[in-house]
């Protein structure tokens, strides 16, 4: 299970883990979409602490999640970003679109 969903007052905190490449991204995206559709959270925090590798496929996962949260009128924060994932997100300028902490 690459995602762990924790309900919090006002929203959801989801911990992602494992390798987010093209091979793993589809299952993760589906699980994220399902979790968001189920709870319709106003605030979503994605905790990347368990992510051991991420490439551009992970960028697409984050941007799609952002779009889903925008449609709900909710907010997205990405936290506990490991160094390798951080370099990928910085290289792609994702920080201009999503709050990275």
């Amino acid at each position, binding site marked *: 299970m690459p995602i762990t969903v924790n309900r919090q007052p006002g929203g959801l905190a989801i911990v992602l883990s494992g390798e987010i*490449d093209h091979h793993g991204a589809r299952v993760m995206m589906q699980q994220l979409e399902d979790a968001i559709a189920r709870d319709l959270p106003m605030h979503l925090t994605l905790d990347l602490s368990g992510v051991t590798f991420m490439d551009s496929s992970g960028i697409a996962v984050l941007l799609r999640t952002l779009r889903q949260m925008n449609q709900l009128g909710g907010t997205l924060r990405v936290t506990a970003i490991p160094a390798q994932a951080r370099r990928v997100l910085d290289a792609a300028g994702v920080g201009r679109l999503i709050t990275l902490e």
Partner: protein
Amino acid sequence: MKAIDQTTIVFTSRSANEGFARACTACFAAQLDPTLDEVADIKTAVSEAVTNAIVHAYPDRIGRITLRLRLLAGNLLEVQVKDSGVGIPDVEQARTALFTTGNEERSGMGFSIMESFMDSLKVRSAVGRGTTVTMRKRISKRREGTP
């Protein structure tokens, strides 16, 4: 440029081989004693190139991907990813950030990431023949005896 060491790995364009290609590259690069950041950069770049071959080169069939790893003089690592897929009609356009012919699972950042994580990136492609991506990165020489 003559290679000091070289290995070639051929695999199919199944997505499970993305992790395999990263692991092979990291193992080969280990002889250069790279830092953790350098290993991470190399793995990310090879992941982008191999994913492109899997997703774009062979959109509706399983094809062959060749990963050639070379160690060149001056602590230089060369990674080459070659496919015999559909090819790229306009390489310059393809290398532009955010350009993608893919679906919503793609962000058009693969080539930009390869470029920023490696020292050089060369893309040769012919429509209907395939694509060869060649990247090089100089690995910092850590002084002997220092931890």
